[in-house]
Structures are given as C-alpha cells and as structure tokens.
C-alpha cells in the first residue's frame, strides 16, 4: 500500500485562543475522498485551516507527503502548499479579477507556461466545472452555484494532488449541491485527485465519501472514522444518531 498523502498526528486546533478539537490522529489515503463531518460549530473549518497551513497547531503536526506543513522555512512550505488546491467556504475568488484571471494568476506566478497556454488551461478548467463562457466574468456577476464551481476550478488551477473543499454545498439548493458532489466524484475519477472535504451536509457524505471522520463538539475530539454506511450501522451512538437523522430525513 502506498504511503498516505497526508498524516495528522496528535493535532490540537484552536480558535479564538481556545482548543476546539484535540488529539486528532488520522491519515488521508491517496485517491480517496475523505469527508470531515460534524455538527455546526464543532471546528471542521478550523481544522481545515490548520490542514492547509493557514494556522499553527496548538500541539501535534500535519505531514504532507512526509513533510511537516508547519515547521521549517516558509519557501519550501509554500511549495508544499501549492501541491494542494483549496476551495474556501465563501469561494474566496479574487473579486477584482475575472474568472480567467483568477485561474491564470497561480499559473503565471508558479509555472513557466506562456500566456496562451495559461489561458488555454484556465478555459479548460472552467469548462470542466461547467463554466465555459465564464472566462471574462467577474465573481460579482455569478450566482452562488456558479461561484462555488468557479472556486473549484481555481482550486484545480495548479493540478493539485489533494483537493480540499470547505463546505462546498453550503448555501446551495439540493439540486445544485448534488451536482457539485457529482462534479467532485468526476474530478476524482478523471484527474485522480485525492479529495478532503469538510461538510455538515449528510447527503454529501453518503454521495461522495469513501471514509468519513466524525468530530464531536462536546468531547472536542474525533469519535469515529470509516465508510459512512459502516458508521451508520456500527458507529458510536452519537454518530449513528447524526448520520441516521439526515439519512432518514
């Protein structure tokens, strides 16, 4: 079995000076879709900010392909971070740039591609997410669903090995949320990208996850990890209640 792409070891994460999750130990396997799930306020997005290197852990460490994301000089860590693409909850598209410019900025800064090739790739990534005609649009001209898809396209700009998605379905109607789930699965299938997704939408968990990791807000630790159907059948009571409630809803 190949080594895991990401390893989280003894991680405690804090927000506002207080520990929100502690003692986290898990790994992200190459090619899988791992979903971090839990009720609102349990620290999912805070954990993701630590996993992408935006926050320093209170304790523990995060290894990406065997290298520590939080220790050492900034330049190699930044190079490491460019091997994953991040889709933020609100999209975080750079509002003063068109979608094309949003996708081409990382290509211009971090690849040797010429302008024509950069544009070709940006247009292709936009087409992959169903935004063929969106190259010259500004983020403000997009609907909520389009903005999410554009953010996904930008996360794919540098052909990342690991795609991290923060609540991709939040704020979308069920149909658009399901389309986005489908898109994520297609990208994993066709591009071979490993996916780490944070969500509280249980429909998404059952739709896309190979494994789900459950964060408990009361105990402030992970209480289960495994295939969602298995967790629903044999997981701890709180996890079964959480998954079951949504599964029967």
């Amino acid at each position, binding site marked *: 079995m190949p080594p895991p792409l990401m390893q989280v070891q003894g991680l405690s994460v804090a927000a506002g000076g207080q520990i929100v999750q502690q003692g986290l130990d898990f790994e992200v396997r190459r090619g899988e879709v791992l979903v971090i799930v839990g009720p609102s306020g349990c620290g999912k997005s805070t954990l993701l900010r630590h996993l992408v290197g935006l926050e320093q852990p209170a304790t523990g460490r995060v290894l990406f392909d065997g290298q520590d994301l939080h220790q050492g000089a900034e330049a190699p860590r930044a190079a490491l971070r*460019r091997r994953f693409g991040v889709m933020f909850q609100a999209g975080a598209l*750079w509002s003063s740039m068109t979608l094309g410019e949003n996708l081409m900025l990382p290509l211009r800064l971090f690849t040797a591609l010429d302008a024509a090739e950069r544009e070709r790739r940006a247009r292709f990534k936009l087409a992959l997410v169903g935004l063929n005609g969106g190259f010259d649009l500004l983020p403000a001209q997009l609907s909520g669903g389009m903005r999410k898809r554009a953010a996904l396209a930008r996360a794919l700009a540098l052909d990342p090995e690991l795609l991290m998605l923060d609540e991709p379905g939040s704020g979308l109607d069920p149909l658009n949320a399901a389309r986005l789930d489908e898109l994520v699965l297609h990208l994993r299938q066709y591009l071979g990208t490993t996916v780490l997704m944070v969500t509280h939408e249980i429909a998404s968990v059952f739709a896309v996850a190979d494994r789900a990791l459950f964060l408990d807000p009361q105990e402030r630790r992970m209480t289960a990890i495994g295939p969602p159907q298995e967790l629903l059948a044999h997981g701890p009571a709180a996890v079964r209640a959480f998954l079951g409630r949504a599964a029967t809803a």
Partner: protein
Amino acid sequence: MNSAAPASPSHTSAWRLEQGVWMLHLAGTAGLDVAAPSVDISRRACIDATALKGWDIGLAASLWDLRARLQRQGLQVEWSGLPAGLAELLALAQAGEAAREPAAAVRPVPGHALHEARLTITFFGEVLIALARWLGGAARVRGSDVLQQLDQTGPRSAPIVLLSCALVGVMLAYMGGAQLERIGAQGFLAGVVTVGMVRELAGLMTGVILSGRVGAAFAAQLATMRAGEEIDALRVLGVDPVVHLVLPRLLALLLMAPALLAFGALAGIAAGAVPATLVYGVGASEYLQQSLRALTATHLWIGLFKGLLYAALVALAGCREGLHAGRSAEAVGRATTAAVVKALVWIVTAACATTVAFTAMGY
C-alpha cells in the same frame, strides 16, 4: 406563550426555614424578587410550586435566574410541584447551559494595546522585507495593479487636494498678512505663504485628504478581501499578501504624492496671492518674485520628504488595518475608521517630529 392558566395578580414570596431546609412557596403567577437566604443556616433550598396557578415566560426567567443565584452562593436547590411545561422549559435551558464545557485556553491573550503595537511593528517589518525583495528582484509587483491604484489615488484625489490647499493658502495669507502688517513687513508675505505651503502645509493637507479618501478605501478593500477569505486563498498558494496587495498600493501613493504635493503647493501659493494683493497691497509681480526668492532647494526637498512620508504612512495605516481586520461586515467598518484615525495620528506625530528634527539640524 405557554401558560397553564390565565395570569393572576403577583404575590410576594419569602423564604421560610422548615425542618432545616429553606423553603420558598410559590403561588399565583408571581414574578420573583427575593434575595437568596443565608447559607450559614442551611445549604439546602427547596422551591415548592405546588400552589402555582399559572406561569408565563417571565416567571420561567425569574426561576432560572434565582436558581443560578442560589447555586452561585453554594445552595443545593430542589424543585417540587413545577407545572409540566415550566419544568420542561427549565430543563431545556439547563441542557443548553450544560451542552458545552468551557474550552481549554491555548495561550493567554495579551493586552489589546500591546497586541496592536506588536501587529503594527510586525507589519512594518514585513513591508520593509517585501520592499527589499522587490528591489532585489526576488518579488514581483504587477504593473497593472500599480496602475489601477494610481488611477484610484491620483486623479480622483487631485481636485479635493487642490481645493483644500488653496483654502489653506488663503488662510495663511490672511493670518500672516495681519501679523506682518503690524510691523509694516507685508513684503515678506509671499515668502511666508510659499515656505509655509511648500515645506509644511501642502504635504500635511495632502496627507490628511489621502487618509480620508485613499487610506480608508485601502482598509475597506483589504478588510473585505479578508472577510471573503480572498487573502487566505493567496496565502495558501504561497503568494505574499504584502507583496501582492500592499506594495502596489504603497508604490502608487509614493508615485502620486509628489505630483499632488506640487499641485497642492502651487494652488496654495496662487490662492494666497489673492488676499496678498487685494487686502495687503502686495503687487502681483512682487508676490511672484518674493515667492521664487523664498523657494530654496532645502524647502523643496524637506517638503517632498515630508509629503512622501505622510503618503507612506497613509498607505501603511490603511493596509495594516485592512489586512488585520476581523472577518465580518462590522470589522470592515472598524478597520476603515481605525485606518483614518491611525493615519491622522501618525501624520501629525511625524509632522511634529520632522519639524523639530529639521530645525534642530539647522534646516
């Protein structure tokens, strides 16, 4: 509103000691206004609601508050005879309170002022490093970003800078003329206005105008980007926000400042000529010649230095507040206000310090 029975008039409740237990018998639909009983006599308290005829949300809130007060004083509280709806409501509130234990603090939060000062010093250091990297060719600033900021800061600020400096020039001429007239030295009025505008006031007024017009805009733009996680998206890619966002704004203001200063000073000097000629009888050509005579290279470079310094402070205050804003709409407003206030304080402090320093150095 849940209510077991229609409300009836309040009645007064009071504690009684019964078999070593503090008892509070509720009746009617009383709102509670009772002090906690003494814990020296008994540490047990019982609230008997058997005779309660009705309740409303006010009584529920009073009971909830009473229970908390009693527990804070070390009393064990027992309820008896609560109506079903009221008991469930209080249980719901209790469950909500117990849902989350207090989280462990990860580190002590430093004092606000100390924290702010540390952020400012760190930010200044980051800007200096970014400037050094840019000058050394290790970092790249997009020309289009600088041009966009030049457009925002320069032409659109020019009219208000010209107007303000012209009005200050008029005031300076009036005040200076009144004093000089007393000793018959109106001939020096052009020199006073020229030196005053070029060396001190054009830069100061330009800085003040830029702080309100441009510094606030910088703070609002960056704070909005921060709230929308746009800056996080840059950081994840390894793009330094200071190079990508702060340097274009700083460079645009530094490039635009000399032009604004020059036009501002000229406007002030020209406007000062009006009262000088009309009120104090200084001839127009005499005013012009005196102005040129008074305008030495020292005044010019000191005025330019001060103006550039103020422009840099405006850009730094705006960017510092924007980059370190919170992640809400309210935080954007706070950052904008703080940027203007900080820029003004920094400008006035710098003006005072440079005036004292240059005078002490004999300039």
